[in-house]
């Protein structure tokens, strides 16, 4: 085991911890929007740490430039495109009438759109 292997393992492990946090959030959070918030942990630090570890492994242990570039592109793609989907889904869910069971204390969007 070289030093690079150990660093890569540690990075992937950190990514796994954040992915676990996101999964627990998705399973246990009480309402739709909070689940959305918790799931944002997975595509940010979970993916970035894990794919950074994989990138180090591909460069130093296998010497495969094509695979390394592809891994970097996947990482960038997930980071750039995830907020678009998240934003569209949150807006659509709110406008389709999905509300948390326990009423939110501050709800400016509902006040300005529907007056309640």
């Amino acid at each position, binding site marked *: 085991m070289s030093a690079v292997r150990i660093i890569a393992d540690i990075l992937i492990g950190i990514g796994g911890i954040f992915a676990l946090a996101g999964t627990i959030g998705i399973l246990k959070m009480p309402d739709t929007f909070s689940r959305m918030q918790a799931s944002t942990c997975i595509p940010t630090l979970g993916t970035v740490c894990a794919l950074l570890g994989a990138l180090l492994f591909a460069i130093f242990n296998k010497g495969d430039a094509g695979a390394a570039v592809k891994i970097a592109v996947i990482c960038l793609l997930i980071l750039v*495109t995830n907020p*678009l*989907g998240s934003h569209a889904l*949150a807006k659509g*869910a709110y406008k389709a009438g999905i509300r948390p069971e326990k009423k939110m204390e501050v709800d400016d969007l509902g006040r300005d759109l529907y007056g309640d």
Partner: protein
Amino acid sequence: MRDLLVFAIGFAVLAALTLIRLAKGPTAADRMVAGDAADTLICIALVLFSLISKRGIYLDIALVAALFGVIDTMLVGRYLEKERGQDK
């Protein structure tokens, strides 16, 4: 190699856990959030599997999964938004 295999299986298990929410979730948005998370986790697992088995084809599959994961989330979001507009 064995450490990478353990991590990859761990990510796949996390993806399987999010499927519980996909089966249970009361609304369409809940199911979509769980589906998106499962897609991202499977993408990471595929990258790790491609490093283990030394086959480049898994990387291409992961790339396509990352691309289409966003498109379906956006589609469902726009659909939900328009649905309420027609009711009114």
